[in-house]
């Protein structure tokens, strides 16, 4: 496991107290904490070379442009993309998926075409396609999952047909933690002439992966779940697809020549980056990538497997705890969804907050998934490089405080 004592010192937030107690942060699937290097990168930009990019002739504008484009290169390399022009900055994963739906989708999806999703999608990979289907008359299909939270691949094989134009799936479920067989799904999609989009919001931060090995056509992910700042994310897509796609938002930066009635568009990736982008946050994202590379993605994955295994083991000992999702920590990300007896997850979280333990509760933006499990919501603990076995111990022992209030079998 990672030597967390020194590593945690890199994260200023862990030096504060909440309700007089040290912070136990178990909500990195919602957003990760930020190391000093990332906070410093923001500060350096605003203090040292704050300028708009791609336009200025002067020195600090050139420094800003280089830092911004350098960051793009690091992020592209992080996902194994040699051509950094295929990495488009967006606000977040949600915007990246919407970009595809509004441009590629609008151009290529016709009435009766099918888009295949899964029953475990985050709302960010459901709603853009519902909106597209409403505009175009496309049909949405959803691959079901079993009691352990694994996709039914037989169903996938029969659902992905010649009518399928796009398969859009989450790589790692934000609730169940399931790591889906996206490579297999990519092969099924490509065999039918369809494209595949992978929602990498949870997988990119936690697993070393490359777009080649995933064999995907689109990959969407966010900075803030991987030690970077909020407000910036990315869409990666294959060059020929991006080139054929119409622009998304119109404005400055994304154009080549403009007359009053006509415009030609800029080269990739700027064709999709209208207006002044989120320069500071994109630059700081590069520092987050450096930090992750320095620790090493295989090390991070191993750390989370061990922590998840420990959490599942400890929580399984509690007879009133119900766990959701795969129980094999190698088949899932560092996410443990659970309920304590009949106690509503909000009540669990409220009591844990008094112990300075941060967990996420509710439907986790996955209402269809919750309906399928026939529950209102779950509590969820999620891990990252700074979490320790002690965090898990605190979580498990604090459940007793919930029982003290709500009774051993809950409400």
């Amino acid at each position, binding site marked *: 496991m990672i030597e967390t004592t020194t590593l945690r010192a890199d994260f200023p937030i862990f030096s504060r107290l909440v309700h007089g107690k040290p912070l136990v942060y178990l909500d990195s699937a919602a957003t990760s904490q930020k190391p000093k290097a990332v906070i410093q990168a923001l500060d350096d930009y605003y203090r040292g070379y704050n300028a708009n990019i791609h336009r200025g002739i002067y020195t600090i504008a050139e420094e800003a442009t280089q830092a911004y484009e350098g960051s793009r290169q690091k992020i592209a390399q992080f996902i194994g993309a040699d051509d950094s022009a295929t990495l488009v900055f967006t606000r977040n994963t949600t915007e990246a998926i919407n970009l595809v739906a509004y441009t590629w989708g609008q151009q290529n999806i016709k009435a009766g075409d099918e888009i295949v999703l899964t029953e475990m999608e985050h709302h960010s990979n459901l709603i853009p396609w519902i909106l597209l289907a409403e505009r175009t008359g496309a049909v949405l299909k959803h691959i079901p999952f079993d009691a352990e939270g694994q996709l039914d691949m037989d169903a996938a094989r029969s659902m992905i047909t010649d009518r399928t134009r796009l398969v859009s799936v989450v790589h790692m479920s934000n609730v169940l933690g399931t790591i889906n067989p996206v490579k297999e799904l990519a092969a099924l999609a490509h065999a039918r002439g369809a494209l595949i989009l992978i929602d990498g919001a949870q997988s990119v931060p936690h697993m070393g992966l490359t777009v080649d090995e995933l064999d995907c056509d689109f990959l969407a992910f966010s900075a803030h779940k991987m030690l970077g700042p909020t407000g910036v994310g990315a869409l990666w897509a294959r060059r020929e697809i991006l080139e054929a796609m119409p622009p998304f938002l119109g404005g400055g930066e994304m154009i080549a020549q403009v007359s009053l009635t006509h415009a030609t568009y800029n080269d990739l990736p700027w064709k999709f980056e209208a207006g002044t982008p989120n320069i500071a946050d994109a630059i700081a994202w590069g520092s987050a990538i450096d930090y992750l590379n320095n620790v090493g993605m295989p090390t991070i994955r191993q750390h989370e497997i061990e922590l998840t295994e420990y959490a599942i083991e400890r929580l399984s000992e509690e007879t009133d705890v119900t766990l959701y999702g795969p129980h094999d920590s190698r088949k899932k990300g560092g996410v443990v969804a659970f309920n304590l007896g009949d106690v*509503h997850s*909000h009540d669990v979280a409220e*009591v844990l907050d008094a112990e300075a333990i941060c967990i996420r509760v509710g439907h986790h933006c996955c209402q269809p998934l919750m309906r399928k499990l026939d529950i209102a919501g779950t509590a969820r603990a999620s891990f990252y490089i700074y979490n320790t076995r002690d965090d898990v111990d605190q979580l498990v022992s604090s459940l007793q405080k919930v029982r003290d209030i709500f009774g051993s079998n809950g409400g």
Partner: protein
Amino acid sequence: MVKDLYREVILQHYQEPRNRRMLDHPDLEGSAQNPLCGDEITVFASVADDHIADAAFQARGCSISQASADMMADAIRGKSLDETLADIGRFTRMMETDESVGPDLGDLEALASVKRFPIRVKCAVMPWVTLGEAISRYRAGA
């Protein structure tokens, strides 16, 4: 501090709700969902002579929303629709402002402590707002 939220009277209404049941022939009915947490509530009331003859609820939700719904049903039973609407107004003002609302809210005063947990205020208020809308619809249709 968390004990302020989960006061005895709140837990009692949550764990042994008297009004969590169906009504056979409700005259008015309203449902709501909290999109933030997915909680659902349906409130029912039977009306006789412009008064709430009986009130009940069905819900999937947290302790605060359920306790609030249970207390509400107790509080409004026997009251006229106008008095009920006035109670709804007073309760939501108590929860959403610092305004003093008078001494006669009974058990409901316990819910005032929820104000210190701002994200839970919505849980407490949801049954009341839902009932208020149901009464408005009932009156518009009656």
